[in-house]
């Protein structure tokens, strides 16, 4: 399969991200963050933050236990590019252990990977130089899709329910007698794409609370070479390889009818 055959005119993608991973010592990260914000301010002038409150719960034989580690709180630093309609489309997120670039959908325009990759090519060496990063632990490429009445009305039944089996192959062959599939959806799985160079594909399907009958379908490819670190050029090559994996998996997880509908 070539890349061209795996592209669609109107895919239900709402967000694409590419990220590189390396843990920067906290004192370096915090002390250099203000000058980094200044450095990127021409292109990413709108700062923001996310607060993350984390409770670690582990499953022991089906019983949820709060891990002995204390619950944690942390701040994620965001920077957005300006947009003529004041939308948030191109973003950068920083934490001490990663640089992530985001590309969000705007209305009918799902944008493309080719818009985010050049930004990563531009900012990765500058980020690495600024924070003293010489090698990377791995990369991730993530595609978030939404199936709902707005983006994919072709999967909505006359009674208003989402026909998820018509969209996703993993839901189209459930065994046992049934007349339909309904919420809640909350499934995740990890496929090992390559073992020698650990490459994983994560799939997650879950209900999206933001609109009725909406379902989020997330695809993530992670490449973490355990035996060696990546230099910056290798990281870009792996991001491109990760994107190719996403395209191939996208073609496998969406039904033929769904893919044809994404080209209309």
């Amino acid at each position, binding site marked *: 399969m070539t890349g061209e055959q795996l592209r669609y005119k109107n895919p239900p993608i709402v967000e694409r991200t590419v990220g590189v991973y390396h843990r920067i010592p906290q004192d370096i990260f*915090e002390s250099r963050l203000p000058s980094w914000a200044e450095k990127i301010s021409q292109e990413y002038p709108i700062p923001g933050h996310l607060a993350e409150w984390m409770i670690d719960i582990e499953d022991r034989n089906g019983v949820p236990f709060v891990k002995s580690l204390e619950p944690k709180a942390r701040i994620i630093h965001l920077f957005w590019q300006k947009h003529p309609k004041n939308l948030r489309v191109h973003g950068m997120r920083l934490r001490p252990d990663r640089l992530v670039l985001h590309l969000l959908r705007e209305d009918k325009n799902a944008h493309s990977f080719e818009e985010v990759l050049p930004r990563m090519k531009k900012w990765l060496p500058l980020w690495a130089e600024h924070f003293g990063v010489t090698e990377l632990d791995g990369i991730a490429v993530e595609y978030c899709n939404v199936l709902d009445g707005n983006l994919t009305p072709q999967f909505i039944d006359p009674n208003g329910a989402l026909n998820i089996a018509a969209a996703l192959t993993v839901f189209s062959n459930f065994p046992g007698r049934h007349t339909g599939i309904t919420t809640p959806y909350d499934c995740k799985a990890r496929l090992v794409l390559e073992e020698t160079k650990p490459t994983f594909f994560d799939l997650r399907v879950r209900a999206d609370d933001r609109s009725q009958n909406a379902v989020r379908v997330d695809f993530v490819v992670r490449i973490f070479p355990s035996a060696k670190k990546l230099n910056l050029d290798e990281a870009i090559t792996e991001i491109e390889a990760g994107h190719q994996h996403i395209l191939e998996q996208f073609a496998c997880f969406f039904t033929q009818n769904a893919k044809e509908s994404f080209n209309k």
Partner: protein
Amino acid sequence: MRFVAETSRQPSFDFNRPVTQAVKEAEYTGRTEPSHEAFRDFSFEQTVIPLEGGQHSLRLRKPLVLRINPENLRFLVKDWGIELDCLELSRLPRELARRFLKLLNAAENEDLGESDQADWLRISDYIDFQQFTIDRSAPRYLEGTLRRNAEMVLVEWHDGSRETLDHRLGRALSEVDAGERFSAFAKLGRDGKTIALERVSLLQKPGEREDWESWPKRG
């Protein structure tokens, strides 16, 4: 293709955005009521608080404890007397810096009120004061001779002590030849080691009457 269980070498299943998880319906059965305390205290991951736009830092010796009030979704920073809305977590580093600098100023001017005095005592327990003093100290004027600049950068300072500088510091002496004298403004870290060099000048050979004895030692 096969599914494998999570192992330590694999990255955790962690998507790039925080996810709001709401428990709509849950049932609990157990011998005792679950403790609400377990979900009330959060440890703040950031232990380095930037000051003056990142020029200096406040390093905490232990993580801060944020106690959430589920009634109003605000949190209180234990021992620091700071209260914020949970959605305003990003303001916390600035508020910590402001609280510390205000109390520091009041303490230096012996102007601490009774409750501030108690807060200051508790807050002092979190602060790495030695590092804070080093970070805030003004650079000192020093003179020395560059002894070696190939492979390693070796400097003999005016008091006769010798120091090997790392490459980052060595770059500041790139215009100085081996054997040549120079002056510079240096910041000294723990154990008197040089951590920053700036305003480097080249000096003439020492005069016969130059008196180093009256100069303070480096460390």
